[in-house]
């Protein structure tokens, strides 16, 4: 029986806009399918092994236009397994495919591969039986572990204090108890020296850095604060909520802030905006499948779409006067110097020319990203965790930049989203909300 197979390798990467179509015919079906599979595997291997080459797509999709009976399942199996390993669901493969081709797809095979789970996009968030306070693997792996690994380097680049946060803290009554939930390296602790600060973070490495600076801190989860009610006069959540992977966890974290401040207490929340002032930053992030799914963390590869050759250094923070104010009231002890020397690698990199085509036909805004952190080789030794991070796939080497690349998970916020999250909380009212320096911000008052 003669047969014709058409193989299309559709490139999700916009820099490789040419879709290659290969026709193999007429060959006996068994030869066709085996050589086909071989070619495909080589191609996929190349794609994965050469992330630095912009011209090699990181997502290759197989479209079978026509084929002899018997080869379907095998071929679609390859497509499926690749889709899985790249974090794409079969349906997303299809969407991408449809973007490039309007051919007749054997969608039943892509949709329902034998012995494979249902497409991951069908899972809605929070379908797990555990409570909202239980940390999803995506956050453990791509937030907690990352910050633990990069803590010293992260901290040495995080000293610029954001003026909006500073003015909020400076507006508070002297003697106020301020709770910082997700305090990171503690750069806001002690900012208004007439107040008392208690910080917490889920990363022990960052908390230890805070302690060395003489701050009052603990290891705790901002989604489930171990505090009694009404204790704080104010609370801040700076650049924290965007590391939580579900709506309900983001809401819970806000509810916790409200719970732990007194009536009349103010809460400042800031999160990264999708609407970045520097639009080119978005092109350097790795867009994720739009729904969180356990598959993300079980897969050895990140669940990326598009260009996985990550280029971002770090997000520039506003360079303000970075004088480390020591708390006049409470600095009974060490107030360590702040490292003001920026590493070369932490300076925002030049804008890349390439533009990621995020328009994949879906109307939703892309909000889930991996944002890379480049840990220079010479800093990597400090944490000591580099070898195991490389081994476990948590970090990748970028020899060109001389850095380990860690991916941090972000859910970046759209306009109005913070307001929506807060709207269900009945003992808090919005006293201010604004956009500033690529962040959405909201000030709440407990009522």
């Amino acid at each position, binding site marked *: 029986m003669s047969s014709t197979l058409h193989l299309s390798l559709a490139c999700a990467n916009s820099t490789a806009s040419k879709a290659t179509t290969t026709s193999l015919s007429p060959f006996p079906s068994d030869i066709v399918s085996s050589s086909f599979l071989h070619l495909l595997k080589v191609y996929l291997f190349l794609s994965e092994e050469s992330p630095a080459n912009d011209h090699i797509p990181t997502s290759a999709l197989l479209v079978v236009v026509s084929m002899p009976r018997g080869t379907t399942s095998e071929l679609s199996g390859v497509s499926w397994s690749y889709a899985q390993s790249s974090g794409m669901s079969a349906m997303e493969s299809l969407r991408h495919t449809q973007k490039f081709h309007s051919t007749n797809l054997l969608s039943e095979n892509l949709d329902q591969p034998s012995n494979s789970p249902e497409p991951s996009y069908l899972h809605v968030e929070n379908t797990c039986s555990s409570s909202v306070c239980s940390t999803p693997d995506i956050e453990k792996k791509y937030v907690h572990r990352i910050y633990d690994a990069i803590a010293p380097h992260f901290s040495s680049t995080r000293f610029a204090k954001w003026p909006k946060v500073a003015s909020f803290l400076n507006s508070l009554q002297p003697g106020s108890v301020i709770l910082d939930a997700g305090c990171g390296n503690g750069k806001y602790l002690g900012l208004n020296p007439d107040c008392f600060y208690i910080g*917490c973070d889920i990363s*022990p490495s960052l*908390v230890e850095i805070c*302690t060395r600076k003489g701050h009052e801190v603990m*290891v705790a989860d901002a989604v*489930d604060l171990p*505090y009694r009610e009404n204790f704080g006069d104010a609370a801040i959540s700076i650049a924290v909520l965007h590391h939580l992977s579900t709506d309900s966890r983001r809401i819970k974290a806000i509810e916790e802030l409200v719970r732990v401040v007194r009536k009349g207490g103010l809460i400042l929340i800031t999160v990264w905006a999708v609407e970045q002032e520097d639009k080119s930053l978005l092109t350097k992030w790795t867009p994720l499948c739009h729904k969180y799914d356990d598959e993300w963390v079980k897969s050895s590869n990140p669940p990326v779409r598009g260009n996985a050759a990550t280029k971002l250094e770090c997000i520039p923070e506003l360079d303000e006067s970075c004088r480390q104010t020591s708390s006049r009231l*409470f*600095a009974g002890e060490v107030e360590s110097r702040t490292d003001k020397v920026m590493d070369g690698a932490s300076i925002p990199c030049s804008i890349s020319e390439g533009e990621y085509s995020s328009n994949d036909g879906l109307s939703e805004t892309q909000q889930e990203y991996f944002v890379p952190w480049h840990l220079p080789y010479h800093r990597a030794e400090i944490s000591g965790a580099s070898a195991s991070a490389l081994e476990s796939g948590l970090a990748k080497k970028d020899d060109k930049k001389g850095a380990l690349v860690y991916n941090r998970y972000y859910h970046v916020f759209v306009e109005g989203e913070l307001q929506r999250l807060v709207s269900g909380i009945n003992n808090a009212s919005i006293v201010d909300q604004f956009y500033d320096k690529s962040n959405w911000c909201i000030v709440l008052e407990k009522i």
Partner: protein
Amino acid sequence: MRLLTHNMLSSNVKGVVDGFPLRLEAEKWVEKEVELNVDFLRHIFHKIEWKALAGAARAVGYGELPDEADAAMLDAEDFLRRFHHALLEIHVEEGALVCPDTGRRFPINKGIPNMLLNEDEI
């Protein structure tokens, strides 16, 4: 960890109705001098659960706090100094905080309480 922080902490282990106060088991603590601030003490006095503070102070060998206190006592300098010392100058470096309900121990190492729960405690 200062005793002020201890006065805020509460066990949030699943099912616990009243996780406050955590019993303080102190193995090592240090004292660091802090300038006295009367306004701050007057302000925070109303937040403080006195029995918990007095109990925690005893756990670090400081028995100078009265068993009970009211706002009128803030006028006495001697009281203010003791309150100030217990609240802000004692740092627990090593030890544990114990949930009054479940007995779950939250360790304190290098002055840092670790309040994270395990999956089955959430």
